């Protein structure tokens, strides 16, 4: 009864759902439940077998599975590369390799002729040969004439001489001493200085020194100033 109440009390809240036929819309393959116990038994047997024999008995080399992926990739890359045609696709001119050797030899001879010491290691025989060649065959250096005509040569020399002389003249002028023009007032003062007696000058100098000494504060005044403006602590730290 309680179950009936429990199973029916919701129907008032959901009349449409309550009106629907309570069906099982799902289906199973034919004779599924007939064979299910056997299949469960087989699964159980396999499970027990796994528990009894956890290790297969086979072993693999160290780090085998760690390196396996890399080996597979390398092998597959190798397979892909092997499948590619060997030809690079590049071409050379006709008779290239046949002519190449003679080209190389000709170039070596040319370089020997131009700079023999740096191109080839020189033996005694070789050096003698080179000396003979250099002695008999003057170097074919190109000569470039500096002065095309005699007039130009003499004109250049004349210009150089004039420029040098002018420069010397200017230098001479700058070195001459010129006494400064003194003013008349300055001349008069200078004369007065010559007329003043030496004793008067000495007295004047001593008097100025005494004046400065008069203006200096006395020891008592200094002591008073210090006591008024500095504390005992400051004095003791400074000492």
């Amino acid at each position, binding site marked *: 009864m*309680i*179950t009936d109440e*429990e*199973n029916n009390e*919701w129907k008032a*809240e*959901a*009349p*449409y*759902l309550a009106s*629907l036929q*309570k*069906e*099982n*819309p*799902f*289906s*199973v*393959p034919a004779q*599924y*439940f007939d064979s*299910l*116990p056997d*299949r*469960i*038994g087989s*699964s*159980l047997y396999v*499970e027990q077998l796994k528990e009894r024999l956890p290790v297969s008995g086979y072993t693999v080399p160290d780090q085998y599975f760690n390196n396996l992926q890399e080996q597979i990739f390398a092998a597959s890359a190798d397979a892909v590369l092997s499948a590619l045609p060997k030809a690079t696709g590049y071409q050379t001119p006709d008779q290239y390799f046949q002519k190449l050797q003679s080209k190389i030899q000709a170039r070596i001879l040319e370089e020997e002729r131009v700079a023999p010491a740096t191109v080839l290691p020189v033996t005694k025989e070789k050096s003698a040969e080179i000396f003979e060649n250099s002695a008999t065959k003057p170097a074919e250096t190109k000569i470039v004439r500096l002065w095309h005509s005699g007039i130009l040569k003499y004109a250049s020399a004349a210009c150089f001489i004039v420029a040098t002389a002018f420069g010397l003249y200017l230098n001479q002028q700058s070195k001459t001493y010129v006494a400064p023009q003194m003013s008349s007032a300055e001349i008069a003062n200078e004369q007065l200085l010559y007329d003043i007696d030496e004793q008067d000058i000495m007295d004047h100098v001593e008097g100025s020194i005494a004046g400065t000494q008069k203006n200096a504060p006395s020891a008592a005044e200094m002591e008073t100033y210090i006591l008024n403006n500095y504390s005992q602590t400051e004095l003791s730290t400074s000492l």
Partner: protein
Amino acid sequence: MKQVEDEEILAKFSIEGTRNEAFNLLISKYQEKIYWHIRRLVIDHDDADDLVQEVFIKVWKNLEKFRSDSKLYTWIYRIATNECITFLNKQKQRNQTSFDDVSEELSESLVASSYFNGDKIQMKLQQALLTLPEKQRLIFNMKYYDELKYEEISEILGTSVGALKASFHIAVKKIEVFMLNEEISL
């Protein structure tokens, strides 16, 4: 009679010579109930087939430890429920999907399934169920289809009777709204 049968099964199972016989009796008695409980949750027949085998393997391994403080049926039911929840969670993790996406996958499986014989309304009802949260769907199935008592469901799920009642009523209302809206749109 039912009670005697469970006791007989347990007694035979405790004797090594009759253990296999007891186990076969147990499978014969509970395989359909457990299968349909699983099937309504995972939808797909092949998934349900795998899970029902897993459940009975666990029953075999743990039946010796079973204490008769609960019914054998609710104990097996609990194992089946846990296996379904684990399966659905693994599906979410495997596909990195949320609950909503798993429900959508199950709905697609439902539509594509060759082992579905229901009419349009039954299809809509199953789709309505798939919109419910997992536990709510569980409770609805056990109450509506299996007609289990709230106390039995409480034993299986470890949830209080009050919470179960509330959850079931909420599920019923949601399904009612879903079904009526679908009717109006038609």
